[in-house]
């Protein structure tokens, strides 16, 4: 632990990537590096469940602040999981780790079957393996049309030369139209994404994830800033996805969580405080304490 090093907030110019807090640095070797998780470890974690994504004993700290401590989370195939927790519980950091934005100090993340340690890979390689993410703030390509946003999200070869000569096939066009239909933006097909309303941008971003045909969808506060109606539609959409894909929703809006959740995981100070059905979790004395100690 670099306890005697002062935190890096002295206005120093940050040239490179957000430095990994300690330990693993980003991309040192030029050769592709991949580490496979041993099958024994996989079996021990999954214990015969139909597990898809495993977060195994992950820890990360930022300048001495432990954002996540020894966290283990196992998500099943086709599951819809809600993650709740007070501010600073580590919800966003957990997603950063799964998608490769943050490198943990210890532990591993992997997809069952693939068994490659995802913490060694960069964001685009993880995305290629079918883990997609929706940001808290709606993040779409503002200058592009709604159609082009979805086009860029479609799965396929994403290298430079493949893109130079890429043409949309009929099937791909139909797929885009289908997604447009699902997210209700068919009429806005050709308008610039930057001109959409906040709620529409949220939907477009969800649509981009759908177009990517992911195995795991990470959705960070999907209904923030949405009207009641939009929230209901979003709940419907996410529920309908479960079964086909593994969906992880991080949300503050408890009513929304209740409307979609089957299993809820409560995070607190970087650890799992409770896990179970919404009712069980809500009656859990530890959870009540954490939440009542706060704003409730």
């Amino acid at each position, binding site marked *: 632990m670099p306890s005697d090093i002062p935190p890096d907030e002295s206005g120093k110019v940050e*040239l*490179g990537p957000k430095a990994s807090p300690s330990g693993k640095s980003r991309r040192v070797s030029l050769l592709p590096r991949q580490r496979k998780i041993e099958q024994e470890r996989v079996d021990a974690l999954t214990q015969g469940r139909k597990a898809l994504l495993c977060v195994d004993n992950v820890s990360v700290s930022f300048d001495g602040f432990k954002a996540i401590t020894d966290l283990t989370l196992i998500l099943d195939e086709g599951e819809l999981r809600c993650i709740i927790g007070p501010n600073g519980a580590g919800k966003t950091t957990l997603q950063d780790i799964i998608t490769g934005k943050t490198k943990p100090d210890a532990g591993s993340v992997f997809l069952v079957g693939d068994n490659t340690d995802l913490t060694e890979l960069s964001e685009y390689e993880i*995305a290629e393996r079918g883990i997609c993410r929706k940001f808290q703030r709606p993040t779409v390509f503002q*200058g592009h049309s709604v159609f082009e946003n979805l086009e860029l999200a479609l799965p396929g070869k994403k290298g430079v030369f493949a893109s*130079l000569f890429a043409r949309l096939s009929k099937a791909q066009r139909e797929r885009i139209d289908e997604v447009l239909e699902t997210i209700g933006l068919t009429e806005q097909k050709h308008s610039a994404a930057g001109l959409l309303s906040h709620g529409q941008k949220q939907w477009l971003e969800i649509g*981009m994830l759908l177009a990517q045909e992911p195995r795991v969808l990470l959705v960070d506060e999907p209904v923030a800033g949405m009207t009641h109606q939009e929230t209901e539609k979003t709940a419907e959409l996410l529920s309908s996805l479960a079964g086909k894909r593994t969906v992880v929703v991080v949300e503050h809006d408890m009513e929304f969580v209740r409307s979609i959740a089957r299993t809820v995981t409560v995070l607190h100070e970087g650890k799992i405080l409770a896990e179970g059905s919404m009712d069980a979790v809500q009656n859990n004395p530890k959870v009540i304490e954490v939440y009542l100690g706060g704003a409730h």
Partner: protein
Amino acid sequence: MNVKAELLRLLPRKGWIGLGAAALICFLVPILNSVTAPGSAAHVPDYLVALIGKFLCFAIVAVAMDLLWGYTGILSLGHGVFFALGGYAMGMYLMLSIGEAGVYRSKLPDFMVFLDWKELPWFWKPFGNFGFALVAALLGPGLLAYVFGFLAFRSRIRGVYFSIITQAFTYALMLLFFRNETGVGGNNGLTNFKRLYGYSLAESSTKLGLYTLSAVGLLVVFLLCRFIVVSKAGRVLCAIRDEESRSRFAGYNPTSYKLFVYTLSAVICGFAGALYVPQVGIINPSEFQPSSSIEMAIWVAVGERASLLGGVLGAFVVNGAKSWFTVALPEAWLYVLGVLFIAVTLFFPGGLASLILRKKAAT
């Protein structure tokens, strides 16, 4: 494949008409220069042909800069490096092709005789071959850009930090090329060229040939960049410019896209430099000055970012103004450039091309 549909994908009908008109004007210049008699109203004087030829080379650079800055959002303030390196590769060939016709009647280039060197340094030898010099003018800048870009983009250096580093980069190379020991003519650079591939550079037919090559070069580079911009790769570039992290989570690797565009733009600048040097007859380290690279960015800013045509327009307007002012009011030029830059930024943030094209606001 349907050729017509492909061409219309590349440029709309009006675009092709405009391009044809521009090409026609470009090719009228040498015709009006050689066919009409000096003194007649339609005559284009030699100095004007040389000037436009120079501008065409600058316009090639501007198109490459626009691809990099306008579309990908990478502001390189060191592209003068690649232009100059292309120029030096061509200059070295031109020096060797002088043969024994130099001032000292030696096989060695004059500056080497002057420095009392006895033989040609090893790295000069292959430049006696025109093909090698041409390949070096393209691949030299390309290779350097690839290595520099690889290190910079892999470490995720971007925005203003990247611009500053590229400024330092061009400055460092300027100091290197100023040294006599570097072996490319020191602060005088390379000059007094006589022949290019057997053709005398003093002949007006050679000059017109070089002019025509520049015009064709600009056309080819423009269409190449246009091809990239309208492809899906072009949309990925803009996506990286606007929302890099989203593009990453959508499965694209911004590093390889940036590296591709950066390297390609360097190759194009090397090509422009190689065309430029035989037309102006000199290459020296002043091309590495940080201000030359900044001017390249100003061409694009004044023209219009993210519109290849804007780059061409900007290169012509700024350099046209420069040619006029440095003769009429030499002291005023830098002020004029500054005012032009500020005025365009303040009043036509879209750039001059947006005024002409009357494009609807995109965002």
